[in-house]
């Protein structure tokens, strides 16, 4: 593993500690805050340099909000985000800007995340222009180099985003994220808007770039097979908190949390001979505005016990590197 000078080696690259992000719900007289949607509720994990942590969960589980809170597109309500050992949740102004060079984001929707009025060259060049005192020609060379790295032709420089297909736009988004040579990239559902064949191109590209630039990824997705393909370790989120986190193979071969088991068994396998016992969960994910007491999963859990509705289980390590939040363990 390569370590940059200046980093303190004993810290993981990113540590998230008891992160909480609530959205206030306004209503009633004078539109007072009448409650909170607890999108992220006590989330903790860490990412080592050079690894990919996958974050999976169903819609509304808070995985995107978690990503956005880490990069400070959203302000956390409580908790800490330590980047290279330094808490970045309280930073502002210049010091926040400096940290943002090191953390970049790739967005889900390649149609909405690129400015339709800007040429591709200026979309990718903008971060370089903002952060470094570089001259025009040197920026252009850097942008052309980036286009080349993500597999786009040089003439893309003078084109607009609408002239490209979904997969190519996602490549533009990736080039923009790479422009400042970040240490951590948060990829929020980067391939969910793409077709299978294009999806595989983009996943291959991300893997190649990770090798070349020694990147660290927080890979957020709902597709478990995609997450497994990309990640070293995987965290499963349910209703704002981590249900289980383990390295890739352990999580899929020996899932512990009943939710993880159900989630894995629900994936359609592209193999007609594959016959398996499917765990069909009842009902939908409850609303994070009014989460159930105790374990958030207990109303749907096939193995729920009386204590599950009383006390929220803490995330504890049951095997080396395998943590689960469930009263069964």
């Amino acid at each position, binding site marked *: 593993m390569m370590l940059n000078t200046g980093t303190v080696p004993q810290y993981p690259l990113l540590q998230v500690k008891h992160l909480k992000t609530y959205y206030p719900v306004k209503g009633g007289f004078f539109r007072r805050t009448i409650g909170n949607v607890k999108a992220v509720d006590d989330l903790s994990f860490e990412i080592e340099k050079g690894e990919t942590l996958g974050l999976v969960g*169903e*819609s509304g589980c808070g995985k995107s909000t978690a990503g956005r809170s880490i990069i400070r597109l959203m302000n956390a309500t409580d908790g800490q985000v330590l980047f290279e050992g330094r808490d970045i949740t309280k930073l502002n102004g210049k010091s926040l800007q400096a940290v943002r060079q090191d953390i970049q984001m790739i967005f889900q929707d390649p149609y909405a995340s690129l400015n339709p009025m800007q040429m591709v060259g200026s979309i990718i060049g903008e971060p370089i222009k903002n952060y470094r005192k570089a001259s025009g020609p040197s920026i252009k060379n850097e942008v052309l180099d980036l286009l080349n790295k993500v597999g786009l032709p040089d003439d893309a420089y003078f084109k607009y985003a609408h002239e490209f*297909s979904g*997969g190519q736009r996602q490549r533009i988004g990736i080039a923009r994220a790479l422009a400042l040579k970040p240490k951590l990239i948060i990829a929020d559902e980067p391939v969910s808007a793409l*077709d*299978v*064949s*294009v*999806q*595989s*191109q983009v*996943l*291959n590209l991300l*893997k190649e770039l990770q090798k070349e630039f020694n990147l660290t990824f927080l890979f957020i997705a*709902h*597709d*478990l*097979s*995609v997450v*497994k*393909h*990309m990640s070293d370790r995987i965290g499963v989120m349910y209703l704002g908190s981590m249900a289980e986190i383990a390295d890739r193979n352990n999580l*899929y071969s020996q899932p512990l949390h009943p939710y993880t088991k*159900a*989630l894995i*068994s*629900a*994936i*359609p*396998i*592209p*193999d*007609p*001979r*594959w016959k398996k016992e*499917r765990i*069909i*969960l009842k*009902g*939908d*994910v409850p609303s994070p505005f009014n989460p159930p007491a105790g374990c958030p999963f207990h109303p749907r859990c096939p193995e729920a016990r009386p204590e599950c509705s009383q006390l929220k289980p803490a995330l504890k390590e049951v095997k080396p590197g395998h943590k689960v939040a469930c009263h069964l363990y």
Partner: protein
Amino acid sequence: MSNLVHKEASLLEVKNLETAFSIDGAYYNAVDKVSFSIKPGQIVGVVGESGCGKSVLSLSIMQLLPKGNGEIRSGEITFEGVQLNQLSDTEMNRIRGRDISMIFQEPMTSLNPVFTIGYQLQEVLFNHMKISKGDARQKSIALLKSVGISRPEKLVDEYPHQLSGGMRQRVMIAMAIACQPKLLIADEPTTALDVTVQAQILELLKTIQEVNDMSIILITHDLGVIAEMCDEVLVMYAGRIIERSDAESLFYKPMHPYTELLLGAIPKMDEEAGMLSSIEGMVPSLKNMPETGCRFALRCPKVKPECSAVTPLLEEVEEGHSVSCILYETSMPRKGVKP
């Protein structure tokens, strides 16, 4: 219409269907010479990437093409001996919803937000049956119950926005099966849903199919869903069927290079993470479609010089497994040759 249909006879037969859209005054085929048939009780999957014509195919069968720019240019769609594309709107309205019905991808936008669930369900019943108001209400409650909704008596008086995505899709399914259709066209029924909810809906569709002995055309881009659900699979590329087979031999012995690549492009759960196969380039747009030759030739890794000159036909290579690729063309004279 006669109900005496032989079990062996096909329920729906599509022959040489060409559906075109007009762009700047000229017509371009979005579905090009597609032929297939469906037997009663069969689940047929149609798989392909966006823009391959799978949704246009289903809209053509339902006669729901946008008037004015989409048109069936030639071919026949025969349902129980009746040619659907010859029927008038009134005649088609009688079949649609009663004998053939459809569920759409977006359960959010395909329900009317200003009417209650019960009203929308009863509308289907009133259109096709002589039924009293009270009976219609009872029947809609029973229908909601049959699709696994836990408090149907309350839900009939609620509006679509009060339901979650999975519940809305269940309501859509209840509407679609209200008159016990013989054929259900499900266009990406679970794409907008989470995987645990998707598992619920697929299970539900399978149960309904078995109970009602209904045929299903399942349109999806997800090969996993195809493998779970379908007896037979049609693989579409750029408006044509390029491979047709039973599900098992499609997944174990894919023939067309496109199908092979498509299967290799999905990350597998039980394999180590290597590189995924990917297909260079993209589907040509309707206007730039090559006129002769194989439409996949431009992206095909096994392309030969003659691929762009000869249009391959969908030919049965093994029993029940047809492919449209010159790599598999036998030396035998072609059946049903077309230029």
